[in-house]
């Protein structure tokens, strides 16, 4: 098991390194930090631009391979991911934003998963009854509401609610208010900011897990071993809980594990709508400011998340499914 995991881990590290380096060259193909200084009044000369960019390793006048080696050796020897075009450290930017994103994404992922599985189990054990039909219909609609539409609809509702109550219950922008101190005030403040973006992510995300869990559970309910269990006197609910649910959870956890990277970078829209300074927002700003080192760092982070998701999926399958033997 350990040996198997180590081998998988090494494979993923290799993939991440190669993917990150490919992104580095792609970024130089499409982004040019020098364009940030075009159109300045008075116009900057090429020497002035170079004087700004060469120390940051962002000047196109240095040969590409030399730039690449400066960047790559910086990461390997000093874990330094480079500087942005205005001189800020990518390491600092990323390490701060990961926590902002995590705050949003972790809660949303947990709620989405629990809600999706619960609804899946509930509707599957009532197949084609009214509750199942209603659940299916709402899930098809919520799954296909664009995140942007759901997000701004929530903003409109929250503004209406705040006006009706006369107090600011929900904050529609930002991750926290400045100047809040103490444990409970901070907690309340965080919740006030967190509610709307979390709702937006949950509404548009729970349905895919609902559908998967429902169809898997239905397949398992019809399987022989569940029929045997019922023949031995278990009620339908008991048979589902003790036998069918466990096997049907395996593919669901796999899917959840694989959505971790998607949620992290997929929160791009949610973070833009609610103005959160997380990885998603950073991703947009690095692209629009030709911040090559920042862009590549985001890409590496996304690749790392994919790898973690895939490894988590492997591990959960081994834990949940007694039939899988690895050596």
């Amino acid at each position, binding site marked *: 098991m350990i040996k198997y995991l180590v081998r998988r881990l090494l494979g993923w590290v290799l*993939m*991440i390194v*190669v*993917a990150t380096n*490919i*992104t580095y060259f*792609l*970024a130089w193909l*499409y*982004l040019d930090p020098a364009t940030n200084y075009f159109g300045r009044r008075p116009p900057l000369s090429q020497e002035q631009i170079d004087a700004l960019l060469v120390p940051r390793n962002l000047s196109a006048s240095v040969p590409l391979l030399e730039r690449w080696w400066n960047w790559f050796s910086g990461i390997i020897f000093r874990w330094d991911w480079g500087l942005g075009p205005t001189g800020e450290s990518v390491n600092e930017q990323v390490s701060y934003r990961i926590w902002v994103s995590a705050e949003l994404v972790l809660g949303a992922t947990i709620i989405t998963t629990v809600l999706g599985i619960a609804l899946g189990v509930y509707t599957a054990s009532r197949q*084609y009854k009214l509750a199942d039909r209603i659940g299916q*219909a709402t899930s*098809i*609609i919520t*799954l*296909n*509401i*664009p*995140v*942007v*539409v759901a997000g*701004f*609809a929530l*903003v*409109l509702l929250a*503004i209406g609610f705040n006006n009706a109550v006369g107090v600011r219950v929900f904050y529609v922008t930002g991750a926290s208010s400045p100047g809040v101190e103490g444990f409970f005030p901070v907690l309340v403040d965080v919740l006030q900011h967190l509610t709307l973006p979390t709702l937006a992510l949950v509404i548009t995300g729970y349905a895919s897990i609902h559908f998967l869990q429902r169809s898997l559970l239905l397949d398992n309910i019809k399987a022989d071993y569940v029929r045997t269990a019922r023949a031995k006197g278990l009620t339908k609910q008991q048979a589902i809980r003790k036998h069918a649910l466990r096997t049907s959870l395996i593919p669901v956890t796999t899917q959840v594990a694989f959505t971790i990277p998607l949620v992290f*970078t997929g929160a*791009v*829209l949610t973070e*833009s*709508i609610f103005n959160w300074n997380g990885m998603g927002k950073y*991703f*947009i700003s690095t*692209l*629009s400011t030709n911040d090559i080192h920042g*862009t590549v760092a*985001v*890409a590496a982070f*996304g*690749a790392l998340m*994919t*790898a973690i998701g895939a490894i988590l999926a492997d591990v959960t399958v081994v834990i949940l499914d007694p039939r899988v033997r690895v050596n």
Partner: protein
Amino acid sequence: MSLESIGVSPEVGAPPKNRKRTSMRALYTRRFMRNRGAVLGVIILAVLVLFAIVGPLVANHSHTDLDFLALRQGPSAEHWFGTNGSGNDNFAQVAVGLQRSIQIAVLVAVGTTVVSAIVGATAAYFRGTYERIMLTIIHFMMVIPAFLILAMISNDAGGNWLVISLVLIFVVGWYMPARIIWTLSLSIREREYIHAARYAGLSGMRIVIRHMLPNIGSLLVINFTLGVVSAVLTETALSFLGFGVKLPDVSLGALIGYGSSTLVSAPWLFFFPAAALTLLTVSMALIADGLRDALDPTSAAGGRA
């Protein structure tokens, strides 16, 4: 339901030659029509397509006209969906934006389906080195953040919708469906009719196109409809973030991005494109659901037919 439609002759005891067998198409149609959501989806989609085609023709203004007498005004007899801050007619813009979004979606869905079907099926049929290379590429595509590359390239292309569509096909769209089709094709590869075709001396490409792909046709049809939904969503996201279709060209995403900045002061600029977009994605999803019921032989949701 009449007796003829379930394949039973009305006159009991009539000679067997009068008995009509239900054709495949009639069978699929009937199973599709039984799903009320799917029928609703077709109706909504038809109305939207009609709006996208006829809308720009019947609007009082073209989508690039500026009406300086009506800046950021609510819906009225002159401007049915109101105007934006520069005096553009929102009705004409939504109609043109919807047209553009549908064009991108259909082009991307067709392209993605074709590319993923060919890659997936040939990888499963030819196996060996070719298959290993294809699977490695697919795994790489999963690790490289597609959305980032998409944003870089389409930003560089200056908002040209054709370039955006091509990137959506080749960078984002094809690899996940290709992997699914590959898994399915692996089992089809071992069927007798494929062996028969091989012993009859058909070339590999011919077997893939004439014998393998038609047998996963239902999956391809469903993939196509779901591809439309995801293409619409991705294009909207890009345009909303400012990396997609750019002015003077409009798409629903670009309009929503604009409308979101005036959410409170001019909600109509957000509401109409958002409604059009939601109706488009939901109707396509309902149709996909109905197609799955109709085409998937193991699905019992459509009842028996």
